[in-house]
């Protein structure tokens, strides 16, 4: 069992690294400025798509992430989507990430025309003092205007990204975000805890993450608040109105194969994980010469794949099928966790309880030996 899909890889991610500025919490592969490189970059991504397209089957999901994909401009996005379009399966989900301040009516219309079905809007917070901590460029009102443009263009699904455990964030701040969600009514919400990643500006700065209790309070407030609005807490950091789950992300959590294109992009195909090296110039140069971009390759053995399936699938609210995921390293731990009310056992399935989900990291470490 290596996760391979006989009909070919059905999920495609394209990394578009350009950003107007680097946000304080960001540790992704991004390129600030460099607008002169966008044509060459588009050419390189299309060349990489050409090289890899043999592994692809009909695409059920496509995700253009970044970076700030919308900084590519309407025409280049249209060219990219036009190249992908013939590969789509009927009813495919096509998502584009966007920062609120970059979404105009014109851009939204172009995306709609290019077949985009879903826009994920990086709002992060509605509170100006928190946006400032996060180094975000959006101004109050940007997100609402962007949402209106997306809807006016007829793009069926809207998702918004929010953050919690931002230094200085109070329960009142979070309640304001919830009220904003209620008013806006997106189909999907991703609400992430801010991570102090090594290498990010915020980790080097004066702000420190809130303590565990406050972070837990905020997290629980977000969960219960969104549930009260009719959203299902279907993944640890993701909430959806019925039927509006992100199918592309679900593919990750179901440990399916995916192809990643672009600088720094990761693919997992038939038990191999490979990562394009960061470094825009080297990426573009290799493809311009007709070569594969510089990459690392990791063969994932059966135990690693099994542990990853447990790690990923226990993030979901649906029961994990043990026959699919593979045997737990410590079966006895499941009974102990059940006795503590952290998991529920079904016929060949395991499901984390609400409290278990809040402790998913610790729970999965009890069940599996990560080594």
């Amino acid at each position, binding site marked *: 069992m290596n996760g391979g899909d006989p009909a070919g890889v059905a999920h495609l*991610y394209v990394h578009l690294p350009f950003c107007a500025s680097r946000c304080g919490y960001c540790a992704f592969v991004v390129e600030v400025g460099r607008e002169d490189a966008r044509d060459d970059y588009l050419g390189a991504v299309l060349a990489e798509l050409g090289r890899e397209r043999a592994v692809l089957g009909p695409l059920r999901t496509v995700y253009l992430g970044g970076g700030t994909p919308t900084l590519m401009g309407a025409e280049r996005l249209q060219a990219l989507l036009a190249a992908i379009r013939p590969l789509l399966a009927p009813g495919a989900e096509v998502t584009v990430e966007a920062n609120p301040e970059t979404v105009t009516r014109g851009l939204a219309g172009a995306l709609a025309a290019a077949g985009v079905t879903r826009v994920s809007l990086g709002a992060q917070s509605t509170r100006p003092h928190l946006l400032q901590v996060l180094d975000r460029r959006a101004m109050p009102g940007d997100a609402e205007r962007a949402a209106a443009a997306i809807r006016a263009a007829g793009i069926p699904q809207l998702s918004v990204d929010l953050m919690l455990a931002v230094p200085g964030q109070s329960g009142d701040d979070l309640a304001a975000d919830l009220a904003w969600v209620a008013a806006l009514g997106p189909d999907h919400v*991703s609400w*992430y*805890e*801010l*991570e102090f990643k090594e290498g990010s500006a915020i980790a080097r700065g004066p702000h420190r993450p809130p303590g*565990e*209790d406050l*972070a*837990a309070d905020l*997290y629980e407030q977000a969960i219960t608040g969104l549930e009260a609005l009719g959203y299902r807490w279907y993944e*640890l*950091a993701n909430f959806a109105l019925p039927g509006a789950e992100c199918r592309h*992300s679900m593919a*990750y*959590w179901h440990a399916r194969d*995916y192809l*990643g294109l672009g600088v*720094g*992009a*990761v*693919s*997992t195909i038939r038990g191999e*994980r490979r*990562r394009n090296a960061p470094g825009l110039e080297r990426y573009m140069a290799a493809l311009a010469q007709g070569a594969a971009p510089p990459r690392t390759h*990791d063969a994932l053995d059966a135990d*690693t794949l099994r*542990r*990853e399936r447990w*790690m*990923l699938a226990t*993030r979901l609210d649906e029961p994990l099928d043990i026959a699919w995921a593979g045997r737990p390293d410590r079966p006895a731990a499941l009974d102990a966790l059940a006795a*503590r009310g*952290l998991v529920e056992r079904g016929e060949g399935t395991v499901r984390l309880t609400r409290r278990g*989900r*809040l*402790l*998913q*990291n*610790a*729970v*999965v*470490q*009890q069940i599996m*030996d*990560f*080594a």
Partner: protein
Amino acid sequence: MDQTHIRNFSIIAHIDHGKSTLADRILQLTGAVSEREMREQVLDSMDLERERGITIKAQAVRVMYTADDGQEYQLNLIDTPGHVDFSYEVSRSLAACEGALLVVDASQGIEAQTLANAYLAIEGDLELVPVLNKIDLPAADPDLHARALADLIGDDPDHVLRISAKTGQGVKDVLEAIVTRMPPPEGDRDAPLRALVFDSVYDQYRGVVAFVRVVDGELRTGQQVRAMATASNFTAEEVGVMSPAMTPIGHLSAGESGYIVTGLKSLVDLRVGDTLTLAGAPAAEPLPGYREAKPMVFCGLFPVDSDEYPDLRDALEKLSLNDASLVWEPETSQALGFGFRCGFLGLLHMDIIRERLEREYDLDLITTTPNVEYEVATTGGDVLEVRSPVDLPSPNHIEHIGEPYVRCTMLVPQDFVGAVMGLCQERRGTFVTMMPIENRQQVVYDMPLAEIVLDFYDQLKSRTRGYASLDYEPIGLRQSPLVKLDILLAGEPVDALSMIVHRDSAYARGKGLVERLKETIPRQMFEVPVQAAIGGKIIARETVKAKRKDVLAKCYGGDISRKRKLLEKQKEGKKRMKHVGNVEVPQEAFLAVLQLDGSSSQ
């Protein structure tokens, strides 16, 4: 050499008052070490000693000195250990001398250690030559300290030498004073051999090397020698002197100091303080003053990773070869698994051994609360030596408990006397006496050794802004109402956290300890009660709250490897935790007991 041209002397000084620098300078000035060979602190051979500025192993170095009278003298510098833990070794080293340099830092003045060793020297009838060192320091106050030093030993302030061992100023006068003021030895060369063993080391190729002072008779290479206390017999494979490297000279006669290669395989066969005599023509009586160096402080040492148990055993065996006062026996803890209960001369000795195990042998160790050895009389009429709280019989089987007491001598600036007396009272001290010395007070208390071995010295330093100095000597056992304090995690007693405490302080200790443990033990997936109990009765409780949130914030295609590796890393981190029942306990928790009651630390 004629005994009138021999001088055996030691240098007595508080830590950092410059003993080693002066010794180096003497070697240099007498030509025993060339400039080129000169290293800082030639006599301290181990890195750890040099780093801590402490001399652990005494040695004897012979130098030849041509004095102002034109005659050549043989000077034997007998180095002494510089810490209270090794005071027995100090007393034996002093017994090998007729005189001693009493070195005091001219900016700091007399310290408790100086006093203690000066008294030892006076008791041993040594001729003391007072020396003020570091007179080149801007903060030096030689006049003040010279008067105090002279008062201390009943000498004239003008006789106090003023030197800087660092610059070499006045060191020549020190050499002259050794020759002119200190008496020569007075042994009988024709009497049966009696040689005092004042130190010994183990050499992996040559076996035990003994450092001796020949008091009577003569010792030659190849002779059959007997150690009178341990009844070991051996051949003197090599007889020589350190100058400062080992130099065979074939014989040592009355009045001289040097070394003997014995070929013995263990330091246990040749103890410091023993008397060597000839097997064929033994002396009638050994030299006085021998006793076995007894460990005073005990603690459990356990490997964090139980796979390292054999490595720990090997390391202890190796360290024991060169340290007869380190004792150890296997110990099994329910909480910590297999380890060893180790006995040490004192806290410094314990720290040094633990550090060497971790540094030189690369072991990760958990140290349990240090404790002393109690003498427990049971209702059944037995007398038990209890070195671990686990071995304490249940209260209804105890008739009474004797605990070791020490007499603590502290030198304290006037302003801090109140604070120090307060500390001593808190630690069950009994006031003995107080008297002014220089501009300070000498404060003497009798205290339970158990109260000293925890954090007393740190507390003393912190409450006097580092100005107080401490020395102590054992004064025997006293009966005390002691109880065993148990710690329970999630309802289960953790043997490695138990301790023996005075009944009256049990509540405060228990409360302080559970508070500290609460801070040290990370949140678990469930609530963990932390309780202190005496004989099954809970006297204090804290709760480590259950973890509320432990999630990896987000996880998409690009994050999967990173997240998995994060879990792997966290697992690796957990390996350093001990699993006590279901509770994961970090190493530091076992040291929490050392930091004691927060209530009394302010």
